[in-house]
């Protein structure tokens, strides 16, 4: 195959898109793997332990060991389950988590040091209904848990599934309303536009209330502590995945961590300026740094990493709340607060403050 | 400032809403406070509007404002609109001023009554309706107020509805009023078909321009309107409800007799003076009815023993005077008498209320006596009221009554005969008022010992209104001192713009001269004194004589005591035939024929549906099947068409 044709193919937007998809997928999977290690390490630190350190230097190869273990364990399908949904549920759980990432811009458009003729955007798809897309896909994530819980034909699993569906619906509302503030400020549903608009100011500052609501709701949506009621081990054994083992369990596990990553990425995009640098000083004022196409990417990854750390930190610090408290918080506090947020934002926009 | 005119009726209705809806929770103190305050503020606004009106030159003293178009349908248009001119401004002053004093008095009189809040809600509603009536700028809105006072009188007369007589009296008042209202409605309809409008400011000029004197249409309208006035203002033959209205609480009687309700008819006739002046025949009718009522009621008053009944008949009689004034074309004099009458009649009723309060509910004057010692304030104020009503020189009643009598004698439509009737009625008035006064306050106490110990002066909240009204009764007449006594008849000239047409005719007819006027004035003073002396002679000096007279004129006495048997005659001639006819219709026509028809239709469908209801299987699928069949058929129809 001659060289010119290769370059022709490489420069085709479709090819770039496919490459992007594979890179993003690989990155997420890689992060998921190391996130599990990170979680164990951090929890050990918090509990004044050392954490896994046997496999590889500092236990760095631990994720691979875990993966191999999961793959080779016996795959049990109990007799009393509904086989179709039992098998489908883990897959249904993980797909939305990965799909959501498609609209998140993770860097500014670039030509990779002039290799390409036209700048390409570092985002798999720039939908003009980006946020709606995120919410739509995220709302599908619940089916994996609900169906898994139901198909297991086990009362603990069923309860876990029920809890998660109620929880998801409750928090999705305040989450959606909290984002309204951002939409009103950006005037667009596209995430690329939202990030671009944060040049003037990260939305966390004008939208602090919305940010708080969104972050807490994101915790609830990802079933992380203190809102991990669907799998509350002290009450429900292991909740919806009680009956799961081996690779199917690993998929639920991966789904949870991918969800965390996606949630962090969305929070960063909506409130923390996406791939933009610090709100002061531009790219640290250095013209060289300004030219480097990977700087935005680096900023983005740093912020996501920080948020992931917060996720883990919170998990090992806070106790779990009761289910009625969870519901009360969602409906009686966050819902009114998010409406208030819309009101305040609207008034401030009318007064030309924003 | 005139823009705020709507506040005057609006405030009392606010009071009604607050007291009616929340009164039970608010407690009696708040209820009383709210009830009085709203009327008080209304009075202040009325007073300031009145002052402003006075500051204008007399020909531009007119203000009219449409708040809201109530009904608009083709040609017909009715507004919620208010009109302020000398007549209505005087009326709102009387209504809110005297009304306010009655409200205050009620706080004391109705103390501890279980329906306190209801009472005040009604009272405020009453004031509201009356204000709407007098402020209206068209006949229809006036009719709203007209019906409103009718309703409120029903509610208040029957306020103690547990008592059968009170409930009956309320119904009687309502029904009799409706007869009058019927005439009023006919009048309004005739006005609309004749003039195509109901606004005062359009009807009256049109009438004057387009119709000659004595036109039959105008005469008919005037008579219809007067029938309405007869009902509301208790004239023969529709006066029967007023004495029975004594069943209501005494302040209500004061309100009905003094400030509101009964004056509505006089006000309305005066308001329509342009129409009446165009119809001399109807004027004559008004004058005759007024004079007849005056003497008729006064004669009944001579022998009544119930303190409130005496006052009631005196009201009927005084209303007769007012209509007499209107009938002879002296509308200003009628309104003047209306005002002074409001003062002293409110005073007399509230004084009587104070007496009844002290006597523990006793109303028979033969069981009272010597109350002077126990109730000095009531005694003095009652005395002022009595002197005022009998027309002693210097007091309010003197000026107004005298003007009426003078006009009756010498006015454009007057005649000596009317004057004679008036003067006889005045004699009667003087006699029965002093009779009641002496029996109540002088002599020795004739009640039980228990009652004697119970006697006490009323609390301040009741006596202060009495004192204020007593002062008004004493000096209220000085706004209308006639020319002959060196006065300038301020009120007459103030009202002149409204009664312009009426006055013209009157001035021409004044031929009698000043000496005649002075003689007539002297006569009326003399007869007042005669009444006083006779009463004194019979009831203080020579106490056996009344009983002897009673025996001697047994027939007349009995007829008078039984009020000429009017109620009985009405029962026999009107009430009973209607009742029997109704019973016949109820038992024969309604029960058999109408019910049979209705029940037949019902049972037809009942049996028919018993068959059809089998279609309701309760299975949703069958219903859905029917829907789909319907859809298929409809779609098929459109496709094949």
């Amino acid at each position, binding site marked *: 195959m001659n060289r010119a044709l290769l370059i022709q193919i490489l420069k085709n937007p479709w090819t770039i898109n496919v490459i992007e998809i594979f890179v993003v997928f690989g990155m997420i999977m890689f992060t998921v793997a190391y996130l599990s290690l990170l979680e164990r390490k951090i929890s050990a630190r918090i509990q004044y332990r050392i954490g896994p350190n046997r496999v590889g230097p500092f236990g760095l190869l631990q994720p691979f060991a875990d993966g191999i273990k999961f793959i080779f364990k016996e795959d049990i399908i109990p007799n009393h389950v509904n086989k179709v949904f039992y098998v489908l549920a883990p897959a249904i759980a993980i797909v939305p988590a990965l799909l959501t990432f498609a609209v998140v811009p993770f860097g500014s458009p670039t030509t990779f040091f002039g290799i390409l003729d036209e700048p390409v955007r570092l985002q798999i798809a720039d939908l003009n209904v980006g946020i709606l897309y995120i919410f739509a896909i995220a709302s599908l994530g619940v089916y994996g848990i609900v169906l898994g819980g*139901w198909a297991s034909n086990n009362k603990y699993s069923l309860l876990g599934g029920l809890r998660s569906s109620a929880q998801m619906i409750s928090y999705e509302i305040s989450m959606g309303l909290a984002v309204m503030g951002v939409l009103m400020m950006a005037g667009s*549903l596209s995430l690329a536009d939202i990030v671009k608009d944060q040049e003037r100011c990260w939305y966390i500052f004008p939208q602090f209330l919305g940010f708080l609501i969104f972050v807490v709701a994101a915790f609830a949506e990802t079933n992380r502590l203190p809102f991990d009621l669907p799998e509350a081990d002290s009450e429900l054994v292991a909740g919806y995945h009680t009956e799961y083992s081996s690779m199917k369990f690993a998929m639920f596990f991966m789904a949870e961590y991918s969800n965390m990553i996606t949630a962090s990425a969305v929070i960063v995009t909506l409130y923390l300026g996406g791939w933009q640098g610090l709100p002061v000083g531009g790219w640290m004022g250095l013209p060289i740094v300004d030219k480097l196409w990977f700087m935005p990417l680096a900023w983005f990854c740093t912020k996501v990493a920080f948020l992931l750390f917060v996720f883990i930190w919170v998990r090992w610090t806070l106790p779990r709340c009761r289910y009625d408290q969870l519901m009360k918080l969602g409906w009686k506090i966050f819902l009114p607060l998010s409406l208030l947020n819309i009101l305040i934002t609207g008034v401030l926009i009318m007064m030309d403050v924003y | 400032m005139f823009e705020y005119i709507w506040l005057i009726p609006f405030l009392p209705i606010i009071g009604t809403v607050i007291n009616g809806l929340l009164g039970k929770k608010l407690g009696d103190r708040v209820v009383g406070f709210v009830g009085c305050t709203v009327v008080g503020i209304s009075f202040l606004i009325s007073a300031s509007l009145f002052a402003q009106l006075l500051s204008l030159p007399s020909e531009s003293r007119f203000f009219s404002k449409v708040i809201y178009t109530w009904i608009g349908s083709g040609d017909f248009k009715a507004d919620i609109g208010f009109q302020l001119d000398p007549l209505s401004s005087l009326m709102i002053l009387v209504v809110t001023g005297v009304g306010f004093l009655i409200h205050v008095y009620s706080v004391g009189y109705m103390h501890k009554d279980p329906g306190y809040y209801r009472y005040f809600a009604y009272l405020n509603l009453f004031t509201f309706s009356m204000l709407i009536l007098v402020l209206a700028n068209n006949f229809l809105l006036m009719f709203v107020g007209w019906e409103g006072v009718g309703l409120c009188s029903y509610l208040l007369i029957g306020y103690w509805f547990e008592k059968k007589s009170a409930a009956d009296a309320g119904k009687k008042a309502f029904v009799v009023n409706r007869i009058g209202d019927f005439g009023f409605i006919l009048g309004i309809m005739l006005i609309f078909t004749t003039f195509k409008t109901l606004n005062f400011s359009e009807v009256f000029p049109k009438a004057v321009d387009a119709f000659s004197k004595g036109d039959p249409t105008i005469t008919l309208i005037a008579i219809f309107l007067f029938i309405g006035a007869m009902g509301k203002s208790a004239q023969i033959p529709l006066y029967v409800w007023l004495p029975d209205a004594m069943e209501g609480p005494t302040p209500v009687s004061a309100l009905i007799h003094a400030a509101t309700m009964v004056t509505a008819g006089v006000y309305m006739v005066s308001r329509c003076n342009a129409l009446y002046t165009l119809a001399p025949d109807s004027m004559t009718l008004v004058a005759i009815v007024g004079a007849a009522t005056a003497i008729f009621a006064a004669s009944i008053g001579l022998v009544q023993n119930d303190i409130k009944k005496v006052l009631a008949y005196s009201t009927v009689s005084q209303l007769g005077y007012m209509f007499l004034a209107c009938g002879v074309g002296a509308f200003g004099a009628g309104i003047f008498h209306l005002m002074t009458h409001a003062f002293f009649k409110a005073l007399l009723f509230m004084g009587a209320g104070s007496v009844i309060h002290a006597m523990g509910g006793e109303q028979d004057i033969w069981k009272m006596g010597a109350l002077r010692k126990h109730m000095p304030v009531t005694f003095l104020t009652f005395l002022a009221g009595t002197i005022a009503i009998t027309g002693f020189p210097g007091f309010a009643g003197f000026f107004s009554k005298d003007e009426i009598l003078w006009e009756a004698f010498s006015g454009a439509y007057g005649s000596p005969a009317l004057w004679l009737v008036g003067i006889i009625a005045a004699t009667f008035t003087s006699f029965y008022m002093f009779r009641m006064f002496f029996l109540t306050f002088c002599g020795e106490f004739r009640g039980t010992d228990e009652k004697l110990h119970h006697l006490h002066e009323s609390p301040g909240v009741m006596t202060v209104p009495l004192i204020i009204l007593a002062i008004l009764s004493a000096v209220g007449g000085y706004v209308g001192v006639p020319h002959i006594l060196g006065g300038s008849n301020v009120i007459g000239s103030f009202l002149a713009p409204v009664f312009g047409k009426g006055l013209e005719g009157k001035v021409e007819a004044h031929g009698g001269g000043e000496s005649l006027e002075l003689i007539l004035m002297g006569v009326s003073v003399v007869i007042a004194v005669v009444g006083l002396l006779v009463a004194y002679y019979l009831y203080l000096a020579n106490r056996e004589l009344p009983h002897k007279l009673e025996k001697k004129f047994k027939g007349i006495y009995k007829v008078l005591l039984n009020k000429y048997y009017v109620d009985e005659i009405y029962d026999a001639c009107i009430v009973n035939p209607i009742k029997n006819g109704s019973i016949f219709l109820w038992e024969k026509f309604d029960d058999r024929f109408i019910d049979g028809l209705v029940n037949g239709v019902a049972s037809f469908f009942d049996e028919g549906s018993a068959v059809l209801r089998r279609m309701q299987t309760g299975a949703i699928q069958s219903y859905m099947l029917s829907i789909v069949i319907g859809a298929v058929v409809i779609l098929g129809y459109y496709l094949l068409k």
Partner: protein
Amino acid sequence: MLETVLFYFFAGAAIISALMLVMRKNPVTCAVSLIITFISFAGLYILLNAHFIAAIQILVYAGAIMVLFLFVIMLLDLKREEDFLSRLKAQKFFGIALAVILLAEVFAAISSINGMFLTRGIYSAENIAEAGGNTKVIGRLLFTDYLLPFEVTSILLIVAIIGAVFLGKKEN
């Protein structure tokens, strides 16, 4: 070309899953079939350039309404439905026959309107793109021409919420 393929793919998925909804006896299977139908519909909406509606189709129908259905199915712990309509065999026969007639009539109606186009509106694909995209234009329509129905919708939703809370409340 791509459009044709995608249309037949989504249409096929929608029809098959709709048939599953009607024919399967397990309520959860029915619900999941319906979810698939809804998602296929969303795909069709995207083909029709209705991005906003596609997004809220998934958000509202697949994400919220069907979760509620599943929630209720699980809450009531519904078992498989026994042989459907054992009692009303005739009903079943007539029902399906009628439905087929209805479908035939609908086809007849479609063939008769084909080609007979009414007035063409102003919102062509280019105009929409120029005005800022599908979502923006719909938003503007909702807050101008359709403001009253839009506000009434909010009242409807409030009423529905109150009704649902009242109905769902356990009698003390």
